[in-house]
């Protein structure tokens, strides 16, 4: 006799049976994947968007590839090295052909750079990785890239650009969407894209690397998390990304399914205003009179960090899907410092620190944050408000739609200055360039030089600035990395930001499928393999 259980599982199964429209796997060597979103285009140079980029890596290769932790690994370039202070030389892989049979040479790279920097109507252009660089083909398989100043991140930038066949340098975005021009060198060939419905890929048997195992891959966009989980349970799809936290226990406990989790590089942090110019209305005394930001004092910033019970947020708010953080990078990711631990929860010490900073009686504070931008963002803000209230900071929370929040966060104050005294936001290093978070958030704000555009709290330390700038202008990569880690350590100990946690990314698949995952929360189809 079958028992009727009305619970989450019953709901999921019911939803799954109503999803009969999805085609099941045809054979063992075919794979059906449900993703949370679909690309805005199959043109690899149309828009610099995470989902577009991860889809592009299936069909195209870049000169330099990134592994799951965004470390650089050889791609269409077998090796690269600086030949002088301003020039990188890339040795291209020999014997590589595009899906249409054309041979890959340095000319294709140069043609690609021309096209990628000039795609009409691009919402966010790849030109940022290309401008300021001169490309020169020394011979068919040697390419030199020079910059005006010493620039160690040329290989990182090159990892962002998908290489196309030079025959399609003038192809339109539409040509790539329909497949007329979609010939890359990647592990899959492009079969078709029906927007909103399906993307189909087939194996590239002539791939220069390890060939993928699937003959055909069908990718379906399913926006709703519970529907995705239901499709997996019903067997309509073999693999899904972004399991909704509420569905996770169901999927984990179910036979025949496996769940993959990894700490992503998406960091949630608090930023605390550190100057008294201007005095903002969001920190006040108990009578409501605005006071200069208490967070000018590093002890008050440390008090905030110690007041936050990161483990409680992970357990009770995030359902276990976050890892307490003490710096930008999760362990194993570029720029990680083994010397920085997440602050332990210590409300008593926090109260002492507040008293030492001269705020023994506490003060009133409004913290701001976006609603619906990050996983559980408003709940985390609420939990932080509770925790701060407990050490004597009488805290209010104001949340707003993300578009409103980010405008006010950056320039809502007088003279287009950042508006808030204390705010929560998120960051993920999209490009994998190791100095990125330091240049954006930590360096003293010097807009005209491109430093500190995200430095909204006035943090400034000349020693840290020097380390960042030295690292960014040295062609010695290892020395640069040491400088960045040292800068991170100083800045985090001065609470330039208060890290809260890294989100944990999730995937789920039917048994017999393995997924190689790392700090990136996007999905790479070619990393999905049959289990040995």
């Amino acid at each position, binding site marked *: 006799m079958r028992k009727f259980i009305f619970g989450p599982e019953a*709901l999921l199964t019911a939803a799954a049976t109503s999803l009969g429209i999805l085609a099941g796997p045809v054979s063992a060597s075919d794979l059906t994947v449900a993703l949370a979103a679909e690309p805005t285009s199959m043109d690899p140079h149309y828009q610099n968007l995470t989902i577009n980029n991860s889809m592009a890596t299936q069909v195209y290769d870049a000169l330099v590839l990134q592994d799951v932790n965004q470390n650089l690994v050889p791609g269409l370039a077998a090796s690269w090295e600086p030949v002088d202070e301003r020039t990188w030389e890339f040795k291209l892989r020999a014997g590589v052909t595009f899906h249409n049979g054309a041979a890959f040479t340095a000319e294709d790279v140069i043609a690609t750079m021309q096209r990628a920097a000039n795609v009409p109507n691009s919402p966010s252009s790849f030109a940022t990785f290309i401008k300021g660089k001169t490309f020169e083909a020394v011979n068919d398989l040697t390419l030199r890239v020079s910059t005006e100043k010493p620039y160690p991140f040329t290989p990182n930038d090159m990892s962002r650009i998908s290489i196309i066949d030079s025959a399609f340098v003038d192809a339109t975005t539409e040509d790539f969407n329909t497949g007329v021009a979609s010939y890359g060198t990647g592990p899959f060939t492009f079969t078709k894209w029906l927007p909103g419905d399906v993307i189909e890929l087939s194996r590239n048997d002539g791939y220069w690397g390890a060939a993928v195992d699937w003959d055909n891959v069908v990718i379906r966009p399913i926006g709703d998390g519970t529907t995705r989980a239901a499709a997996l349970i019903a067997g309509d799809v073999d693999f899904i990304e972004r399991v909704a936290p*509420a569905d996770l226990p169901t999927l984990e406990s179910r036979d025949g399914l496996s769940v993959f989790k990894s700490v992503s590089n998406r960091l949630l942090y608090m930023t605390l205003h550190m100057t008294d110019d201007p005095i903002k209305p969001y920190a006040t005394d108990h009578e409501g009179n605005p006071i200069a930001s208490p967070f000018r004092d590093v002890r008050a910033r440390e008090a905030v960090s110690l007041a936050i019970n990161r483990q409680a947020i992970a357990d009770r708010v995030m359902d276990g899907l976050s890892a307490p953080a003490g710096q930008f990078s999760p362990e194993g990711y570029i720029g990680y410092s083994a010397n920085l631990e997440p602050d332990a929860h210590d409300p008593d010490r926090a109260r002492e620190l507040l008293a030492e900073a001269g705020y023994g009686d506490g003060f009133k504070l409004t913290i701001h944050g976006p609603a619906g931008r990050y996983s559980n963002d408003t709940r985390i803000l609420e939990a932080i408000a*509770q*925790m701060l*209230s407990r050490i004597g900071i009488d*805290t209010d929370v104001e*949340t*707003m739609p993300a578009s409103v929040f980010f405008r006010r966060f950056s320039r809502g104050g007088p003279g287009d200055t950042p508006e808030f005294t204390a705010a929560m936001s998120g960051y993920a290093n999209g490009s994998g360039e190791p100095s990125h978070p330091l240049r954006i958030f930590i360096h003293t704000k010097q807009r005209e030089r491109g430093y500190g555009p995200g430095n909204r709290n006035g943090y400034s330390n000349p020693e840290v600035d020097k380390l960042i700038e030295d690292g960014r202008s040295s062609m010695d990569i290892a020395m640069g990395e040491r400088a960045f880690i040292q800068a991170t350590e100083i800045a985090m100990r001065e609470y330039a930001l208060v890290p809260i946690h890294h989100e944990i990314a999730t995937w789920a698949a039917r048994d017999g499928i393995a997924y190689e995952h790392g700090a990136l929360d996007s999905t790479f189809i070619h990393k999905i393999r049959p289990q040995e």
Partner: protein
Amino acid sequence: MSEAKAVSAGRPETGLLSKFVRSDLSRPTTLISGILLLLIAASATFAPLIAPTDPYDLATVSVLDGRLAPGEEMLDGTIAWLGTDGAGRDVLSAIIFGLRTSLTVAISSALIALVVGLAVGLTAAFYGGRIDAFLMRIVDIQLSFPAILVALVLLALLGKGVDKVIIALAIVQWALYARTVRAAAMVERRKEYFEAAICLELSNARIIWKHLLPNSVSSLIVLATLQTAHSISIEATLSFLGVGVPITEPSLGSLIANGFDYILSGAYWITFFPGVMLLATVAAINVLGDQLRAMVNPRLSR
């Protein structure tokens, strides 16, 4: 003296309230609704005295108490009879305080909208012509947008806060009152007592205030009652969508929204109990409003 005689025919029916109470008590549904509403109003008014905990005091609410099932004990020893929500608030206390927010918002916005609508409607009906046309086109424009859409846009501009929700709800509702009162006043204008008042050359203000207003207002009272219920729902919707009251001071709507994400994981009580309360409040007000309407409208009276 002569004025009193001339307009005596136009005096509004007196004793609406006593008539209401008498007829109200004669029907069980209205009796129950009445008692329910009194209880709701009383618990909202005396929330700090009744509620077991203060759900707005962040120094005592702890996320470690989050999602306790009904009847479980919180860290400080209080029993959470209706469970706790995701932030660790006692759901019972949060409902009592949330009712307070919801009712405050609904009643204040209904009153403001009523006053504005009354002024506009009477002005339009009394002066007629271009003024009428102008005011009524504004009303048309206002009414052609869905209330929730206008409220969303307004709150996006104004920001969060109870006062802002009240303003937004008043703005989306005044036009309805203006339209209703104008219609009633247009009818009154054609009556003889009104012409008599004009012939006596009473001042415009006096005619509007003393004659037009009392005779046009009865249907408005009904509308105001029903609209109060409606604004409770709109406020709940706005808070559900995350643009209403601040998250640390939840109304019924934001409590329901809060719990929505936990439904699949089995924590039904965060949504269920506030939902029942919202339903009960809105239903009670609606039943009473219907009763009022039956009395005011002669065609419906038994």
